[in-house]
């Protein structure tokens, strides 16, 4: 019997067997199609031996080719955007030499719409291990890619803005400093002996202005310097030690104001932080609590640490005047905002505190009741 007739003879029986074994849950076209729909991924292949190219249903849909379109290898470059044609060709040739690829390329539909795609390709080998074609999948990632590019572009813009702002702050503080410096020296040299009363008063104004300008500039300097030090390295800081240092430095005003301190640092004693910042944060929050004490009672300040959801917190709670958060909540941490008529208020303390906390990736929040007190919570 000839080979051909044997095959013919066998075929019906093979068919019957496969029909008998029909499994309704087999990996068939259903899954393949659903996956390709869901992922917007189409398949393609090139057969080097028979010189044929193939697009599957989803590929045809993504590339918007007409039903009658027959893909050819010679025309395939037309599906890549001009600037990526070379890249696609290189990947393709490398794949024909046996190198699989996975890349993001700009493709073009049959109707000339450009879109971003993720393309994978693998060589197809025959039994002898020779490469006889390539097949792969490409996925439209246009939406994601566009968003990604947009975010990158906005990031660049923001970075640029930041850099300019930073330079601006530096230039302002530097140039102002030269002028203020001269103004101060001039007032220092000015001979006031021979002035009459009126002129002397006016001159006193000059001196005050010069001094105030200098103070304002010092604040500005602090802020500018703070921005420069963002990359300061964290080290393990002991809160108790920092607390003691702060308390020592404000012993005098604590005594004058009869402040009572309660501390509890046992839950979180040590954590990685910039020591100088912690000291400044604690100093600011404590002196604020004293500055805005209630006139009818001695200040009591509670300072403690705790851990929640693997994050460390520092709390400074007082029984002072309190702040009307509904009215001032949004402005509380802004520069030059003061809410009490207090001559020591510079409107800078909380702004600096917030900047320091945030420059180390933390947060600061406040709860307060007017007449009862405030509670500042720092996420470290």
């Amino acid at each position, binding site marked *: 019997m000839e080979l051909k007739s044997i095959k013919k003879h066998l075929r019906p029986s093979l068919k019957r067997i496969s029909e008998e074994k029909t499994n309704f849950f087999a990996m068939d076209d259903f899954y393949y199609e659903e996956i390709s729909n869901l992922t917007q991924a189409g398949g393609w292949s090139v057969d080097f031996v028979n010189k044929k190219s193939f697009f599957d249903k989803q590929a045809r849909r993504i590339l918007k080719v007409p039903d009658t379109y027959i893909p050819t290898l010679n025309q395939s470059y037309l599906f890549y955007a001009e600037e990526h044609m070379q890249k696609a060709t290189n990947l393709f040739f490398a794949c024909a030499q046996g190198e699989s690829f996975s890349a993001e390329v700009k493709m073009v539909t049959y109707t000339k719409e450009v879109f971003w795609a993720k393309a994978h390709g693998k060589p197809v080998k025959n039994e002898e291990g020779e490469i006889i074609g390539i097949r792969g999948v490409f996925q439209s990632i246009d939406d994601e890619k566009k968003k990604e590019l947009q975010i990158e572009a906005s990031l660049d813009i923001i970075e640029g803005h930041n850099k300019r702002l930073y330079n601006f702050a530096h230039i302002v503080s530097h140039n102002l400093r*030269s002028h*203020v*410096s*001269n103004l101060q*020296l001039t007032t220092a040299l000015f001979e006031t002996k021979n002035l009459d009363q009126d002129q002397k008063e006016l001159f006193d104004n000059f001196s005050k202005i010069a001094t105030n300008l200098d103070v304002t500039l010092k604040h500005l300097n602090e802020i500018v*310097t703070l921005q420069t030090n963002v990359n300061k390295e964290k080290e393990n800081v002991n809160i108790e030690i920092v607390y003691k240092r702060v308390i020592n430095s404000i012993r005098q005003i604590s005594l004058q104001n009869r402040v009572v301190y309660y501390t509890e640092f046992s839950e979180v004693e040590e954590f990685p932080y910039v020591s100088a910042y912690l000291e400044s944060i604690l100093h600011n929050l404590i002196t604020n609590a004293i500055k805005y004490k209630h006139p009818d009672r001695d200040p009591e300040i509670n300072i403690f640490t705790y851990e929640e959801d693997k994050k460390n917190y520092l709390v400074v709670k007082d029984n002072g005047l309190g702040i009307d958060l509904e009215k001032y909540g949004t402005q509380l941490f802004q520069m030059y905002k003061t809410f009490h008529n207090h001559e020591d208020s510079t409107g800078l303390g909380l702004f600096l505190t917030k900047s320091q906390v945030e420059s180390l990736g933390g947060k600061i929040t406040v709860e307060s009741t007017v007449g009862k007190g405030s509670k500042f919570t720092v996420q470290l």
Partner: protein
Amino acid sequence: MKYPIEMACIIDDDDMYVNLITKILDMKNLVKNLLIFKNGKEALDYFVGALKKLEERKIPQVILLDLNMPVMNGWQFLSSLSEYDFPELKDSTLYIVSSSINPVDMERSKTIGLVTDFLIKPVTMDQLSEIFMDKSA
């Protein structure tokens, strides 16, 4: 008249500042001869000229150097002057007097042997007296 310092110099492009410092130095009789250079280049030319002729007396004992200046700034002046390696300069005291509060500048100044200290403007009268009296003591 006895002055604490024979010769000092200011290298600074800010006329008003130079004027004010000159007045203070005069008023307090802190220095006999005061040289003024508007930028690093002018100062460098003078220093190199004077030192090559070995006119030691003409080397300022106190130097107040600004950083931001046209033509040649303070840093360039320092690095050019260092290259000559004049031993006579060891007897001079050099202060950087700048409006810069940039910690980077301060750190940098510490790495330069010629620099004694970094002063931030405004300099006070007391600071100036101290600098000149210390030097003469």
